[in-house]
């Protein structure tokens, strides 16, 4: 464990692993999606019947598979850090590539879902539902895209701190999905 020059100057944030700024981001994202999901459930209270019908139009299985895709991708990202910590640069790059590839699979499945929703079955659905579905999952998917870019960058400039910080972002995206999926797809 290499100490950082000003390890203690982050105050209470110093004891968190990786760059403390990433934890500020994690907390912020948790709050944003948390408030968004609260909005979703409250909007649901206003029109439960419309929401149930709208939720039934989602492809729940696709969502569930995507959960597993992301969790597996998270494992690969964690293994990349583990390899890098043992100074195994090349191995860590392969793991990052694997993590990124699963991210791409996630996006492909997501794209099919969106295509289906936009082309075939958005008629007659609750409007708040549609707005929130696209906003929340879309905002999340944008994070996946961003995450891919970050994984690429830290694979390239691959010191341990970079890889830790980059994969922390990736795990956060994963974390958000784990909270998002049950509420939007399953809670009815």
């Amino acid at each position: 464990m290499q100490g950082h020059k000003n390890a203690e100057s982050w105050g209470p944030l110093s004891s968190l692993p990786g760059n403390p700024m990433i934890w500020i981001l994690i907390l912020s994202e948790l709050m944003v999606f948390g408030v968004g999901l609260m909005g979703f459930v409250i909007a649901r209270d206003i029109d439960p019947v419309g929401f149930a019908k709208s939720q039934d139009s989602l492809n729940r299985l696709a969502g569930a598979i995507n959960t597993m895709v992301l969790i597996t991708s998270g494992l690969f990202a964690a293994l990349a850090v583990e390899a890098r910590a043992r100074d195994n640069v090349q191995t860590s790059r392969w793991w990052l590539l694997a993590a990124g590839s699963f991210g791409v699979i996630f996006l492909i499945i997501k794209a099919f879902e969106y295509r289906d929703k936009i082309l075939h079955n958005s008629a007659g659905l609750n409007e708040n539902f549609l707005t929130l579905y696209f906003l929340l999952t879309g905002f999340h998917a944008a994070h996946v895209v961003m995450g891919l870019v970050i994984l690429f960058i830290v694979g390239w400039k691959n010191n341990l701190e970079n890889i830790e910080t980059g994969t922390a972002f990736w795990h956060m995206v994963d974390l958000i999905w784990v909270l998002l999926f049950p509420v939007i797809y399953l809670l009815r």
Partner: protein
Amino acid sequence: MKYQSQKVAFWYFGAAMALFAIQVLVGAIMGYIYVAPNFMSELIPFNIFRMLHTNALIVWLLLGFFGAAYYLIPEEAERDIESPMLAYGQLILLVVGTLGAVLTYVFNFAEGNVVFGQQGREFLEQPLWVKLGIIVAALVFLYNITMTVLKGRKTAVSNVLLLGLWGVALFFLFSLYNPGNLSLDKMYWWYVVHIWVEGVWELVMAAILAFLMLKLTGIDREIIEKWIYAIVALALFTGLLGTGHHYYWIGTPGYWQWIGSVFSALEIVPFLAMVVFAFMMVWKGGRDHPNKAAVLWALGSTVLAFFGAGVWGFMHTLAPVNFYSHGTQITAAHGHLAFFGAYVSMNLAMITYAMPYLRKSEPYNQISNMISFWLMAGGMSFMTITLTFAGIIQTHLQRVNGEDFMSVQEQLGVFYWMRLGSGIVFVIGALLFIYATFGPKKVRA
């Protein structure tokens, strides 16, 4: 004062305080017009006073920021300002522009003229030539400050300040764009108005606060730097998409109601972080700095900003609430306390801190200065509360019961009298402040 060129700040602060006096006096006149509607109406109508009030506010706050930058950048960069001459030239340009705007508003001699006529959009009424002058002044300023920083020591404080001030200039460019479509017009208008006060100005505020904490407490620079990076990240994360809270009813797509509500609800966080930061630093670093008044203003600023921007902002930021409260006195209550807490107070904190050095003396007139703090903070808080009550009643009568605007206004008279009263207390406080900082000084022992 370690560097000769910091002296420039003195003139910026002086010009700022002159405009401050005018701004609040005009405010008091408007407060009186609210209860005696025909007062001066033949001479200068209310809407002209309103333009003077808000424009003077914005311009003096910017002058204060420029002065603060000219004062603190040399100490951070450890060298003199690149060109003091340019800095004075910039000030003259701004003063000429301000006078031009005032004359245009009051005499309205060029109504409708593309270059010389006033442009009508709230806060951005300045005629085109004044806007261009402001942009030139901003470019001169940015050149001057950026070169100073680039050739000197680079610190987090100056980085954040520079980022903020570049942002101020960049987003002001949207004031030049005025599409015919009213929805688009409003959309870009908020790029200036919202992204200024809830984005880039917050960075300027955080940088000045950090500088004051460095000087007023014994806390290490490293710790302070971490705090301001965190605050800046939070401010931008919430504030940029928070712009959506102005896109509810102007013809923009419905999803803005969700984006605006969610992100702007979190805008309270960076303001809370500034309170925690300032109090922790003063509490832990409790070096007994002789300039007690500056400490008071700095701490007071974070608290009042937290209430004015954070709490009062949150109060009407969710779309279902804003549906009713939009454009009522609640907005005015929030606008006053937020501007006063965040930007007026932080400017006054900086001025209180810097003036003794600029005038080569010990901290002086501390008691009057601190009294002026309590007069202004008290006056403004009371004014905010009265306007909030007025706003709640107005919302109920006008938006829920559907009574018409003027008949509702007549029922709010008592609140407008109280606003006038608290406004006068505020004006007294402001004049006392100017006396305390620019008046007779104690000679250095």
